[in-house]
């Protein structure tokens, strides 16, 4: 991923104004990605009803452009909702590998973050042993406001991301 971007950059580096052009592309990409986070329909555990409430009518995550999709190919974001067992952790990894490139992981709840109330269980793992996590939202389950705040933090993070432009 990184090397390919760097070669692209090197090819046009001598052209005057290329840095500004790269920054412009990054700005547009960041803007569009920020407002169009498509998480995948995937629940690992018991925070799923709260996630349902958040995408439901009173809290309505679609305001932020978050629209759950069915197939992993079209999605940008895995929301690891709830406890991750050993059997499930492999699937989270497979899904992460199958997803197209700008991809983000949000760990919702205490269980994927640490192990939460199942700290002494033999079958529960923390999700960041398997996939890189961008945002952690603690709580058991987190309140809807917390999940929405987490998604807004993810938006901020995506907006500041520099994939091909000049890094600050």
């Amino acid at each position, binding site marked *: 991923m990184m090397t390919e971007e760097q070669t692209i950059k090197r090819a046009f580096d001598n052209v005057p104004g290329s840095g500004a052009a790269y920054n412009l592309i990054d700005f547009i990409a960041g803007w569009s990605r920020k407002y169009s986070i498509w998480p995948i329909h995937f629940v690992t555990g018991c925070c799923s009803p709260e996630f349902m409430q958040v995408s439901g009518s009173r809290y309505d995550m679609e305001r932020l452009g978050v629209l759950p999709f069915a197939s992993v190919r079209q999605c940008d974001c895995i929301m690891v909702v709830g406890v991750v067992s*050993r*059997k499930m952790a*492999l699937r989270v990894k497979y899904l992460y590998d199958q997803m197209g490139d700008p991809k983000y992981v949000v760990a919702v709840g205490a269980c994927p973050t640490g192990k939460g109330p199942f700290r002494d*269980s*033999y*079958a529960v*793992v923390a999700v960041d042993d398997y996939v890189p996590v961008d945002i952690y939202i603690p709580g058991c389950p987190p309140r809807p406001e917390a999940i929405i705040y987490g998604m807004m933090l993810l938006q901020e993070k995506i907006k500041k991301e520099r994939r091909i432009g000049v890094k600050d």
Partner: protein
Amino acid sequence: MSKISAADFVKAFQKAHPKAVKSIESTDPRRANLVVNNESFLDAAKSLRDNFGFLMPVSGGAIDYPDDNRIQMIYYLMHPSSRFMLTYRVDLNRDDPNMPSLTPVWEAMSFHEREAHEMFGIEFEDHPNMIPLLLPPEWKGGHPLLKDFKGEGKQ
């Protein structure tokens, strides 16, 4: 199916299978406990289903007694018309726990026996499909619900 109270059932079963019964009691109008011998386990189960009307399997599980060197396998059965619950138990040797499967008698015990197999290491003869139910297929950490299980995860 005719109604039968738990106390009447205790008497009737003891009369019908005097040799099979290790202990039988009813502490509560809605409960009955029955422990049978290892050998007559399958026959007694068939008799419970056919003659006594325990048509409804509820669940199955085991408990480990390392001090007595035994594992007790417990089947939970329900009498659908008189609505009392029977715990149907058998004691197994802890070193080599094996017993006939009750899946041919009560089909729905399949899941519970699979669970007991992976959690306690009990071998069920004639079980049609003995694959792990809850633990991952690549699990190598032993049988978690045994009292001497220490490990967490793959070993």
